[in-house]
């Protein structure tokens, strides 16, 4: 995985609470057997009309959304199904970070495995971001800070191991495989 240190980007805002992974990627697209190419189905039912044409009123279809790599979403983003297709679709579309006041557990864990930074912030920061779509913000993984265009920097929690994995591009499977002797010892005593 590519190291993730600092990201500066404009934001796209989806303000609703409880956006579930069925919205991020509907189940009918889970029949794939690869990770690639899911970006075109991201938010499919909100993004396209039933005949497949893009809906003009959906934020990802606006010209301002082009090139934005940070998604700001309402509380409890990513709830529901454990499908890793959700972060695959977000990452394939081009997002590298998701900001909310609260992110669902499995979704958050899945994001970290795909170089997608899950960022939780307090209510006032979230409210500011939601009120300022397109704001250019900077995420610093090493410092654990989100810097707003106002110059205000707020810190966000990031588990120590996850931080190391992001900064150094550490591969978790490689890390687990290196624990082989401990796993064998556990299996002998269990």
């Amino acid at each position, binding site marked *: 995985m590519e190291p993730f240190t600092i990201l500066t980007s404009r934001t796209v805002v989806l*303000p*609703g*609470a*409880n956006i*579930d992974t*069925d*919205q991020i990627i*509907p*189940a*009918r697209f*889970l*029949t*794939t*057997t*690869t*990770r690639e190419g899911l970006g075109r189905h991201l938010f499919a*039912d909100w993004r396209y009309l*039933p005949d497949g044409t893009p809906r003009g009123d959906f934020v990802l279809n606006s010209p301002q959304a082009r090139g934005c790599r940070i998604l700001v979403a*309402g*509380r*409890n983003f990513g*709830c*529901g*199904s*454990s*499908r*890793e297709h959700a*972060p695959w679709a977000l990452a394939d579309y081009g997002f590298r970070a998701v900001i909310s006041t*609260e992110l*669902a*557990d*499995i979704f958050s*864990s*899945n994001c970290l*495995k*795909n170089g997608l930074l899950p960022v939780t912030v307090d209510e006032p920061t979230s409210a500011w971001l939601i009120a300022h779509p397109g704001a250019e913000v900077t995420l610093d993984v090493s410092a654990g800070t989100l810097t707003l265009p106002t110059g205000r920097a707020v810190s966000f929690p990031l*588990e*120590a*191991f996850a931080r*190391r994995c992001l900064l150094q591009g550490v591969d*978790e*499977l490689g*890390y*687990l*495989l290196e*624990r*082989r002797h*401990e*796993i064998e*010892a*556990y*299996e002998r005593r*269990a």
Partner: protein
Amino acid sequence: MARAPQTLFDKVWRAHEVSAESADSPAVLYIDLHLIHEVTSPQAFAVLRERGLTVRRPERTLATMDHSTPTLTAQVFGGTPIALDAARRQVRELEVNCAEFGVELLGLTHSQRGIVHIIGPELGLTQPGKTIVCGDSHTSTHGAVGALAFGIGTTEVGHALATQCLLQRKPRTLAVNVSGELRAGVTAKDLILAIIGRLGVSGGTGHVIEYRGETIRALDMDERMTVCNMSIEAGARAGMIGPDETTYRYLEGRPRSPRGAAWERALEAWRALPTDALARFDREVGLNAAAVEPMITYGTNPGMVIPIGGTIPQRSGDAAFSQALTYMGLTPGQPIRDQPVNVVFLGSCTNARLSDLRSAAGLLRGRRIAPGLRMLVVPGSQQVKRQAEAEGLDRVFLEAGAEWRESGCSMCLGMNGDVVGRGEYSVSTSNRNFEGRQGSGARTLLASPLTAAACAVRGRVTDPRELM
């Protein structure tokens, strides 16, 4: 010094630490049982192949197919091909992967196939004190026997296949204490919907729930599974119930339960698992079961739930709430009762066990479903299907005008050909009423099998107690 009192969760967690967590690194947690299915495993096997890895403990891994599989008998047993190309490909790919990596597969035509969370307990593979994972969020179901069971993503499926371990931070604990007796016509499904209504859809985030109290003790295993199944709908990755005599009676004699001396040893270990009297939880919530009514959802997440006699709430200034009601075509202040219904789905890992089918059939016996309504009954496993047929339940459903299918996830998530049409109202015994969950534009009302059967008879949202 005496050992500090521990919760059920603490005991299971500690017993599976290959290494404990520290400030710098998460715990390495050993996984006793890894269940896999066709939708969330292909990319994990691809990683194994790319890196030249094997499945570390194939005997601790069991595969089945349920999500994208058809439920029409001819498509399952080969009379006609699987209609969806992509599903056919996924089924084939799982067969190839299991053969190549030496993983046991209960394949499409196997007599023990079924929804992964139904067959684990049914086979006796799901046991107290085990750590169980699966690439599916409703893995929480298995916690009903006192296992620590949670859903994982596909990358972690790869980790579990290759190392039999996962890297995990220890979650916090939440006790949900339930007292009082459920009234007639009120089921375990209504109870868990009421609990989700109380906690909210993210109230359990970061926590493992333990359901406790006299009401929970009085539930049978099928009911306990319904409760634990929907823990994730409150945001909790896992839900657990302390094992007791009900648990042991359920497990004894199942095909993969321990036998003879091994059973006695297992029992002794299981009896030490329940939460110690003085153990502390990070949070506790209480609920009076005697006050719970038959519940039904009206919105687009399971926390948007009301008693069936209630009215749709007002929440002015909440854009997401208004959007949900617009999607549902419902208005604040409107009673949910008598809302016309197009489809009734009886199935899913939440409510497709034998007792669920019996409960719905009991109400449907001698009655017909409403004209123009479609009712799909999909047993949770092939074994449930056979048992139901041996009792004549299939006849009850067919004579009432419902469709009787082969097992699978079916219309719970509509990726297998079983879908609800755009704009149609579905009363469903499944677990999610998200926008589009049962098909693009479908409008889902979650309820118990009993309520679903009552709605099927009247063609409108109906309190089952009116027909009992």
